[in-house]
């Protein structure tokens, strides 16, 4: 580690994923934070209010009666030109659904952490990504992170991407495996974050000096063009994230990529997954490599927009892609499975894409199981549907 990087890590703290999210938010200096408690997100809220009480977090914290009102408050606060942060989970995210569309339509660069938790009914509190994946058509950029450190760094990177693309960004971390697990986290210096993330100063905003309106009716033509503009903004995100991540790496010595290839060189099979399962998959890959099997991991960090070019590059020359889904779309199967099949379809010598509904409902997926899944899939024809396998 060189001197610049060493000085950038102001301190190393033992933090949970939730605390790391709150630290990321604190360092990004949002001005308005509407937030509502929900398991397992609550520690994010409590850390922010504690920071504020200590005098180290200067944001307008709003505590309304529901997540619906949280997102309803976030949007005009952002349109008025302030930086806005919030966090939620599961049912809370679903309650926001209408407003998630509203936020991206308004081009409001809100950053939100979502703690992936099973969706009722029945009630459960386990890690499962169906909550956020069910929001994939809402126009939010979606990142899935694997660790507390990545969560902290991603909140800061997310503001940069959001404010450049003028799109809201959601960072998802798995319940408990990431949200409540403690690990040593390098907390960057405020000065480094300030230099990385300039104050939010949008060209257009709700302002009495320049009265204009947002939200009222438009013509078919205006609506069509507006959607095109959102798509163009989405299309710019993989490059913006790569740039933001690259600069972050130069500043603090850590980068996370758009899509990460872990030990993929010479691999004839790769595991593809998101979130905390990537950590387990790394252990499985190491064991398989140890045993002489040419297997790697493709970690999908950016899920929306789906980075098709990066995914195709990551899977080029691979015979089998084994997708591990910790989510379930009834009637479709694993959401990442279906998305990757579409992304890789038609590429030259396209790999076989095997989909396993492995982690649904938070069931444990140990490294040995992952190795077993890969051994079963390698060299076999892939079924079009996702397979229940644990």
């Amino acid at each position, binding site marked *: 580690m060189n001197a610049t990087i060493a000085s950038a890590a102001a301190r190393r703290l033992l933090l949970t994923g939730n605390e790391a999210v709150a630290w990321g938010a604190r360092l990004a200096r949002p001005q308005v934070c509407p937030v509502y408690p929900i398991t397992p997100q609550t520690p994010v809220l409590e850390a922010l209010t504690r920071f504020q009480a200590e005098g180290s977090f200067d944001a307008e914290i*709003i505590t309304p*009666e529901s997540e*619906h*009102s949280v997102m309803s408050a*976030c949007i005009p606060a952002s349109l008025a030109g302030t930086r*806005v942060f919030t966090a939620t989970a599961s049912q809370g995210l679903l309650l926001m659904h209408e407003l998630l569309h509203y936020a991206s339509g308004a081009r409001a660069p809100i950053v939100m952490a979502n703690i992936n938790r099973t969706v009722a009914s029945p009630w459960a509190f386990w890690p499962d990504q169906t909550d956020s994946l069910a929001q994939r058509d809402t126009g939010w950029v979606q990142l899935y992170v694997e660790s507390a450190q990545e969560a902290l760094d991603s909140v800061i990177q997310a503001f940069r991407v959001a404010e450049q693309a003028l799109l809201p960004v959601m960072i998802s971390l798995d319940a408990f495996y990431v949200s409540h697990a403690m690990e040593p986290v390098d907390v960057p210096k405020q000065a480094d974050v300030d230099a990385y993330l300039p104050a939010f100063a949008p060209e257009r905003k709700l302002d009495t000096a320049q009265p*204009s*309106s947002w*939200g009222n009716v438009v013509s078919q033509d205006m609506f069509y063009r507006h959607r095109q503009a959102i798509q163009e903004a989405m299309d710019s995100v993989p490059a913006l994230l790569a740039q933001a991540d690259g600069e972050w790496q130069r500043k603090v010595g850590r980068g996370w990529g758009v899509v990460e290839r872990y030990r993929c060189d010479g691999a004839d099979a790769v595991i593809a997954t998101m979130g905390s399962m990537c950590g387990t998959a790394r252990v499985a890959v190491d064991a398989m490599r140890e045993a002489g099997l040419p297997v790697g991991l493709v970690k999908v960090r950016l899920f929306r927009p789906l980075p098709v070019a990066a995914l195709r590059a990551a899977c080029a020359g691979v015979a089998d892609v084994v997708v591990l889904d910790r989510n379930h779309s009834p009637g479709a199967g694993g959401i990442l499975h279906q998305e990757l099949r579409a992304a890789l379809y038609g590429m030259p010598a396209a790999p076989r894409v095997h989909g396993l509904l492995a982690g649904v409902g938070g069931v444990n997926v140990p490294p040995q199981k992952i190795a077993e899944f890969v051994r079963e899939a390698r060299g076999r024809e892939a079924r079009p549907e996702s397979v229940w396998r644990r």
Partner: protein
Amino acid sequence: MKFDLKQDAMLCSGHAACPGCIDALAARHILATMGPDTMAVIPPSCMAIIAGPQPMSSLRIPVYQPTLESSAAAATGLRRALNAQGKHDTQVLVLAGDGGTYDIGFQCLSSAAERNEDFLYVCLDNEGYMNTGAQKSSSTPHFARTGSTPAGKLSRKKNMVEIMAAHGIPYVATASASHLPDLVRKVEKAKGIRGTRFITVLIPCLDGWGLPDDAGLQAARYAVERGAFPLYEVEDGTRYTLNVTAKPRPVADYLALQRRYRGLPDADVATLQAEIDAAWATLVRRSAAGAAVPA
């Protein structure tokens, strides 16, 4: 009473209100009283239609249109963003309908009032979903016919003023465009107060109530004078002031103006009259006491 109109119009001509609409008339005076250092939150409602299509607006101030159910939450977000920018003097004004207030927007309004968020919330109360062609809301009065209550509404109008006052917010009032100086005075008074302020303004809807094009103001005046819509204020949840104190005249001729009460049996008229008399007696008592929301 002589009344000087504000000269600096904040609602421009050419807006999209129906001819004779009382919504536009009320909004014109509310906006002129609030002045240019104001941001409006206007959810889907007749007022949103009057405000007109994006990005232009018939208002000379910024307008944010939230979802139907989120006006008070949106106003909160806007307020706090202004505070974060040091713009404490800029007013946030909600202009919502009764559907967006009494019904679908009620949850977040109660929450904002509990936090005493700093904005003026004006409910333009036309006693139903008039923008969708006149269906009942919880503000629709007893026996009124609407698209969803073709035989007349079976339950009474929700008493939003009492509910808002029970939050203990600094200012709650009713107002009517038929009593313009009173309306303007209330907006002026509310403007000078910090915290959640709530005014519900009766807006006779020509189409939804079944009124001739020139009868909006008459219906508004009758509603006040017949006690169907008393004008009063509640400060800090306890101090009641009746603004029009004359004993109400019988309600029958107010009902007779409106097709929504067509064919109302005498027994139902008597029921309505009894409800109005009881509510009036309560208001007179509270106003005289100058206090007392009963436990």
